[in-house]
């Protein structure tokens, strides 16, 4: 039974999850073995797919829910939650 982990992170007020920040997010997500989802605005995206992540349309201040399933699930959500709160334009 793979480990699973979930936590939320809020985008900084001035940073939307648009092209460059989304690229940084997806590149880091891809380093983990776990499958990782990110949800916002009632939508859910594969955190390793730039197009799905962009499709969330998450603007600054949006709360993202990160959930992962796999051996490194806890590290993945912790790492990505930190990344999200530290994103800059």
């Amino acid at each position, binding site marked *: 039974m793979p480990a699973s982990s979930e936590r939320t992170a809020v985008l900084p007020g001035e940073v939307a999850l648009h092209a460059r920040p989304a690229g940084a997010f997806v590149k880091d997500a*891809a380093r983990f073995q776990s499958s990782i989802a990110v949800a916002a605005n009632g939508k859910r995206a594969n955190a390793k797919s730039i*197009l799905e992540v962009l499709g969330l349309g998450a603007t600054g201040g949006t709360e993202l829910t990160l959930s992962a399933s796999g051996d490194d699930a806890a590290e993945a959500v912790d790492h990505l939650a930190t990344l999200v709160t530290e994103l800059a334009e």
Partner: protein
Amino acid sequence: MPGVTTEGGENGYVGLILVSHSASIAEGVAELVAQVAGQEVPIVAIGGASDGSLGTDGGKVLEALRSAAAGPGAVVLMDLGSSVLAVRAAQGELSPAELESVVVADAPLVEGALAAGVTASTGASAPEVAAAAEEARVASKL
């Protein structure tokens, strides 16, 4: 030299070859991908006919595919019409070994290149990069 080449090169990352009727489109997409995916992924932008008008320079396309096949490989994305025909013609000139390392993606150019570039920047193989590009056919924007 066939258009824009980002830093990457001999670093082992699968590259992108972007083929458009317009040099501005090809170079603009390359610029966008480099901004989102980072500078590691080699990108060759090929746009316009040999006289600089709108069109496709089949010689440049073949040269780019050959050069990528000699390195870590590449995924090719194109806009439509003669760009597609030029890529297919160039594929026909490659050896079976070269064809294994240069994968053509059936995907929209801008969205496909973005997905491909980010995936390539993670060290993915050419087939994985092409598959990411092809997801652009179904990814919803709204």
